[in-house]
């Protein structure tokens, strides 16, 4: 599924990364806890989170996330957006809450990060 399809499914706003919407996303994970993201995240993940501080973007960068979707209409602060711009990480924001956002993507065939690692 492309990031553009994800944007449409989640009726999301693109905060940064309009030029990267054709990137292919194959799995996702959702958490507000960056400790968990660092423990279970895999390179290429689409990260859904409600944590909107700069740490969310730094964590996404450290684990080589493909993009970040902020749920509940949240948006990162300027520092977060600057880090994303420097590192080429697209940021989206959806009004859906975490459960609904993840459910919509999962029901349209986007695997969870743990499902992907179990298949290996």
């Amino acid at each position, binding site marked *: 599924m492309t990031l553009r399809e994800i944007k449409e499914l989640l009726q999301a706003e693109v905060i940064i990364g309009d030029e990267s919407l054709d990137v292919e996303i194959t799995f996702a994970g959702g958490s*507000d806890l960056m*400790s968990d993201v660092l423990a279970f995240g895999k390179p290429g993940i689409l990260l859904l989170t409600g944590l909107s501080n700069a*740490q969310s973007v*730094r964590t996404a960068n450290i*684990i080589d996330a493909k993009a970040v979707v902020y749920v509940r209409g949240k948006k990162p602060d300027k520092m977060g957006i600057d880090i994303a711009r420097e*590192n080429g990480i697209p940021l989206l924001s959806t009004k859906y809450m975490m459960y609904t956002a993840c459910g919509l993507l999962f029901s349209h065939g986007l695997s969870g990060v743990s499902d992907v690692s179990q298949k290996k």
Partner: protein
Amino acid sequence: MMMSSEVEFSQKFEITGGDFSSAGRTSTSIKEILKEIGIDSSIIIRASIASYEAEMNVVMYAKRGVLTLNITPEKLRFKLEDEGSGIENIEMAMQEGFSTATDEMREMGFGAGMGLPNIKKNADKFEISSTPGKGTSLDIIFCLDKTGKK
């Protein structure tokens, strides 16, 4: 910046305790350095996660810390020395889920008691020592040659 097999790379990074807005900056820089040197991407991810967790620990629990990155053809090594409260019980601190984090730390998305276990999980060798009231030392090693690689 290319590294010939004879060259050793070393750099020190100072980390300030309590500086939550800059937390993670050091590890982001280190990741860039590892990419420029041409370290294998699977090792970069593991090393970046470990340095980020270690850096967050200094920001959350110590007054200050120095992280030394050292790369030889055989290994990538992080040595971290901090000045701070230290760890009373290392065995408990190494257990997943054990945490002494404050609400401020948890609001940052950290402090879930996953940091030290996650550093150990990602490293090829991991050593920790601490003196309560003085500080904590970490020695984190990633093998760059084929032997001993995870």
